[in-house]
């Protein structure tokens, strides 16, 4: 039902953005500033609960950026999977463990903080120069405006835009590719999710002494043995 609502509402938004042109500019700067600010706040917050709340702010802003990039299905999937499941799982674990007090910053390896800042900043600079650098000019503007600008500049457009691929709706387009070209990776994904769920149960289980078990006969070092049993039951 959610995907039906998404396919009805979000392509209209994307088309409006395309038609407006400057609306994309405003949306990009607003959502980009929120995403970047929230990401910095995740790193700076000393309380893990606050960091998780900043993380959900960042993820919602990124979902808005997906909508700007003509990917409404991914925008909705991002909200459901990340904001609805992953961050809730983070908050659940933080509160279960009761680690919501402030942690110490610094310490560890000497000069860890300045070296970490320098390495991260250098990585960002290299990525901006190497990945984003070739596409910063006006000829890389996507969609109809981009073609117009490219004709004005006398060059081929670098950005095709998704108007043609999204013609029958983004959800339909993604679904058709997903269940034809990518159906085998999709099935492998289902196996991955089952393995991850079983693995989380096995890893997160409390290990009790062998004498406390009901069937009691397992020797010590029982962790791997009972894990194998559980795998067998589920599989």
């Amino acid at each position, binding site marked *: 039902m959610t995907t039906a609502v998404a396919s009805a509402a979000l392509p209209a938004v994307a088309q409006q953005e395309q038609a407006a042109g400057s609306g994309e500019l405003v949306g*990009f700067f607003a959502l*980009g500033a929120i*995403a*970047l600010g929230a*990401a*910095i706040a*995740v*790193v700076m917050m000393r309380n*893990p609960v606050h*960091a998780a709340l900043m*993380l959900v702010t960042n993820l919602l802003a*990124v979902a808005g*950026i*997906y909508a700007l*990039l003509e990917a409404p299905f*991914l925008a909705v999937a*991002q909200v459901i*999977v*990340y904001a609805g499941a*992953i961050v809730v*799982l*983070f908050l659940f*674990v933080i509160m279960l*463990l009761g680690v919501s007090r402030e*942690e110490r*910053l610094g*310490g*560890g390896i000497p000069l860890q903080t300045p*070296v970490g*800042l320098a*390495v*991260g*900043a250098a*990585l*960002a600079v290299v*990525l*901006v120069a190497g*990945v*984003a650098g070739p*596409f*910063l*000019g006006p000829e*890389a*503007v*996507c969609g109809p405006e981009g073609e117009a600008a490219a004709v004005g500049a006398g060059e081929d457009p670098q*950005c095709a*835009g*998704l108007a*043609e*691929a999204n013609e029958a709706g983004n959800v339909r387009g993604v679904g058709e590719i*997903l269940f034809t070209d990518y159906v085998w990776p999709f099935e492998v*994904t289902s196996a*991955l999710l089952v*393995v*991850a*769920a079983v*693995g*989380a149960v096995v*890893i*997160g289980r409390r290990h009790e002494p062998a004498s406390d078990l009901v069937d009691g006969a397992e020797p010590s070092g029982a962790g791997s043995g009972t894990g194998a049993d559980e795998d067998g039951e589920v599989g």
Partner: protein
Amino acid sequence: MVPAGWYLALAAALFGVGAIGVLVRRSVIVMLMCVELMLNSVNITLVTFARMHGSLDGQVLAFFVIVVAAAEVTVGLALIVNLFRLKASTDADRVDELRA
């Protein structure tokens, strides 16, 4: 009227912030959150390039990245819960020996 490179630059900046978080922070929970930030920035790059090439394959790949990130968080948080039982702490610097 936004060139595709601006989205790529934003994704690169988010990736750098996430990398700084993994390198600087000591709590394994916050380090896992910063890994999520980095995965998301790569997703922005994939969706931007999908739009540039006029093809939806990049969006499908980003969808798979979201699924794998969900599986990774599930297992990672189970490991953190187990680690907390052993050490009564989520400080990465206190996990420096092989035996329990």
